[in-house]
């Protein structure tokens, strides 16, 4: 049991380090295509963290929807707007805006970090059990049935809206 916990912790920290590096590259790198590919690393890392949290269905959905669909959409967006494929120095705002953005991010991180460490100190997960997909589906189709139906209408509206906005006429 202890060996498993140590292995889980090591896996968590390796994946977390990869995700943070990937996220930093997404917001700093000078090449649009590379930014999209670094985003793949972050999203795949999130899927791995869901596996560590024993939430298998969300992990699979993350891979299918984010890695499979959203990244392809981003690559389409990059290509359709005929961005430079090489490095492009003109992706960022002025230095003052970067400075303000960095300040806001650091302040926010300090605030959230302090309140999280203060609030949850060393709360442990207890006995993590696999959260079965059958229970997820039971929950969606009983407790959360109405939000689920609303969501399907929202997806339909977004689909029609995207077609109407993007089509040439």
């Amino acid at each position, binding site marked *: 049991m202890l060996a498993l916990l140590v292995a889980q912790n090591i896996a968590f920290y390796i994946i977390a380090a990869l995700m943070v590096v990937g996220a930093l590259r*997404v917001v700093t790198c000078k090449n649009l295509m590379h930014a999209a590919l670094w985003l793949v690393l972050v999203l795949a890392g999130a899927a791995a*963290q*869901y596996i560590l949290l024993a939430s298998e269905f969300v992990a699979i959905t993350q891979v299918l929807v984010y890695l499979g669909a959203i990244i392809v959409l981003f690559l389409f967006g990059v290509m359709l707007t005929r961005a430079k494929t090489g490095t492009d120095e003109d992706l960022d705002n002025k230095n003052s805006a970067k400075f303000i953005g960095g300040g806001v*991010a650091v302040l926010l991180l300090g605030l959230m970090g302090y309140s999280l460490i203060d609030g949850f100190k060393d709360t442990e997960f207890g006995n993590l059990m696999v959260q079965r997909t059958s229970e997820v589906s039971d929950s969606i189709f009983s407790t959360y049935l109405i939000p689920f139906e609303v969501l399907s209408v929202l997806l339909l509206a977004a689909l029609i809206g995207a077609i109407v906005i993007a089509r*040439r006429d």
Partner: protein
Amino acid sequence: MYLNQFLLLAAILFCIGVYGVLARKNGVLVLMSIELILNAVNINLVAFGAYWNANDNTNVSGQVFALFVIAVAAAEVGVGLALVLLIYRNRQSIDIDDVDMLKG
């Protein structure tokens, strides 16, 4: 494993996303930063869901919420990229700074 590990990771990713939204000029990159923020929120939801599930095995609300967020994020990216394409078609550029026609 501590609950705080996951919450702090999510906080770091969220802040990186906020920096990206504020510092980037390219429309597609701003959308990517928004995806980072949404993912950070999802990690939070699944972590709290797993924490709750360890005490009450029939409760999977955290996962269900995360699935809803994923679906809404997919819709958001679709409409967002359609808007970016429209801006590109009208102005031959997707720099957010160039969309300043409301300034008069």
